[in-house]
């Protein structure tokens, strides 16, 4: 018999839950690191600029405080119009994809699921493919037509999948969601393949878009990305506790009081907003969404209250670094960032993940 009655009434006085306490310092450090990486990403390139000069340019642009000596207008143009928006965009996309990955993994209770499982990328690719082939352009939107169409198609796909799942399976079980996602993805990919076969002269632009890139994307892209990023992340943060519980499966979540189908649907919508906007702005960059949440969980535990913020930081920084490598390793040409994420990411992931589990 457990002597549960005799156990002294020790109170548990720590003000915060234990692991969260430990992690506060780590998060502060990580925020500093983020700042450093963003500065580094901005400073390195065809022409290197010192971090001091970059800060001076940013302050000059935002607060109109005069530039320090030795910075010419050319530097200002490169840093402010080209590199800074590029780095910020990479950060937003990396953060969005990672958070979205963490959400989908917990909601579907499947460590191998990713937002791409839900057909976002195939839907967006199909939309972009149709756009390129038809040469259509939304009036007044110019080059922003592509991200807008990509986003809409990605979102519509995920809604279609959720709707389809709820029709065939009222309880919205994970397996049904994953299988519907696969069915839709395969179907859309098949349509895209058919289209590219028929319009072979457009293959290159479709493939290039799919590989993902942050080049030649200025402030207009960042400005579009930020609202989606904020809406998506805020929405997700409200459901941290529910994601913890959903990681144990639907039955257990229900029995501790989670209204699973409503919360799953909401979380999938926020995840769709994050992935959809990321894919629309950069192309289909894989891998980040899958591995960053894993790394974060391994290093900081599985509590989503911690996992989500650190996913933003890790995912964002990782994307800034891979983009930096993609554009500097073979100057002056650029490699597709989607390839670099896996090239750097896979060995790094293997090292971190398997080192500890020995």
């Amino acid at each position: 018999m457990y002597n549960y009655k005799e156990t002294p009434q020790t109170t548990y006085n720590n003000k915060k839950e234990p692991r969260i306490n430990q992690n506060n310092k780590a998060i502060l450090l990580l925020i500093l690191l983020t700042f450093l990486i963003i500065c580094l990403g901005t400073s390195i390139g065809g022409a290197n600029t010192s971090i001091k000069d970059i800060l001076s340019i940013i302050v000059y642009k935002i607060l109109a405080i005069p530039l320090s000596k030795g910075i010419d207008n050319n530097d200002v143009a490169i840093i402010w119009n080209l590199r800074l928006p590029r780095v910020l965009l990479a950060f937003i996309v990396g953060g969005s994809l990672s958070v979205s990955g963490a959400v989908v993994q917990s909601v579907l209770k499947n460590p191998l699921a990713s937002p791409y499982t839900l057909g976002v990328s195939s839907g967006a690719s199909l939309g972009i493919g149709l756009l390129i082939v038809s040469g259509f352009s939304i009036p007044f939107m110019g080059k922003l037509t592509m991200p807008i169409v990509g986003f809409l198609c990605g979102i519509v796909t995920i809604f279609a999948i959720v709707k389809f799942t709820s029709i065939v399976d009222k309880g919205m079980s994970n397996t049904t969601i994953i299988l519907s996602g696969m069915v839709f993805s395969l179907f859309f990919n098949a349509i895209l393949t058919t289209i590219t076969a028929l319009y072979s002269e457009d293959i290159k632009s479709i493939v290039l878009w799919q590989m993902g890139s942050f080049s030649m994307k200025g402030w207009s892209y960042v400005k579009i990305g930020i609202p989606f990023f904020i809406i998506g992340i805020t929405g997700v943060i409200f459901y941290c506790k529910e994601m913890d519980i959903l990681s144990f499966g639907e039955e257990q979540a229900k029995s501790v009081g989670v209204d699973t189908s409503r919360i799953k649907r909401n979380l999938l919508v926020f995840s769709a907003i994050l992935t959809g906007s990321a894919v629309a702005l950069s192309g289909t960059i894989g891998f980040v969404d899958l591995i960053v949440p894993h790394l974060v969980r391994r290093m900081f535990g599985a509590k989503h209250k911690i996992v989500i913020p650190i996913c933003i930081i890790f995912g964002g920084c990782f994307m800034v670094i891979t983009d930096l490598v993609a554009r500097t390793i073979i100057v002056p040409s650029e490699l597709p960032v989607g390839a670099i994420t896996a090239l750097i990411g896979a060995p790094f992931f293997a090292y971190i993940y398997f080192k500890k589990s020995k």
Partner: protein
Amino acid sequence: MLELKNVSCGYDKVDVVRDITFEARRGEILCIVGPNGCGKSTLLKAIGKLIEYSGNIVLDSINIENFNRKELAKNIALMTQTNNIYFPYTVYETVSLGRYAYLKGVLSSLSKDDRNIVIEAIKSVGLFELKDKQISELSGGQLQRVFLARAFAQNPEVILLDEPTNHLDLKCQVEILEYLSCWAKENNKIVIGVLHDLNLVNLFSEKIVMLSQGEIIGKGTPKEVFLEEDLETVYKINVKKFMLKALKKWE
């Protein structure tokens, strides 16, 4: 008191259990027994409102249909059969999820009282030393106890247990059932368990509901239900003879 009145339930519109009526009194352990596939777990899921059912399930004269998920979780906790764990939560974190229904506000964390309840629940299943260990590193029996602690942390009126003694060695099985029995008696609560081990059922339950092919074959005290002929019809084996034969081996 928890009452089931003409409850039928199942999957995909096919009723697995039909027309079940029984009541579980406070301070008692009620066991649902029957051969594999007779609908024991399905019935348990209906009481936990995990699946849809027809008929009425009434707790202290409130129909559980009137509870929302959170209210239900404060009244009825369900410990299901352990499944795979993919994410590295600690024992403490896992048990603290049982307090979810009591949290107010979206971003609030556990209050001091909540944390004490969680710690007490962990102590009650004897896992205090392991509270910061990751659940993926625990043995099957320890994991089972973690989920039991989470059910206690919900501070419910009724605990539903699906094979709570799975993966446990004999000592643990007895300890868990003794603890549950004490918990029910001292706090005047209800325990409803699905158990396969008829010896444990015989020892620990005040009341038994025996199912066969989705219908009630017998209900009452162990003495009333465990009749030699009835057991043989349900289990297709002479249970009493077998038990006595097994017992003889120990002499």
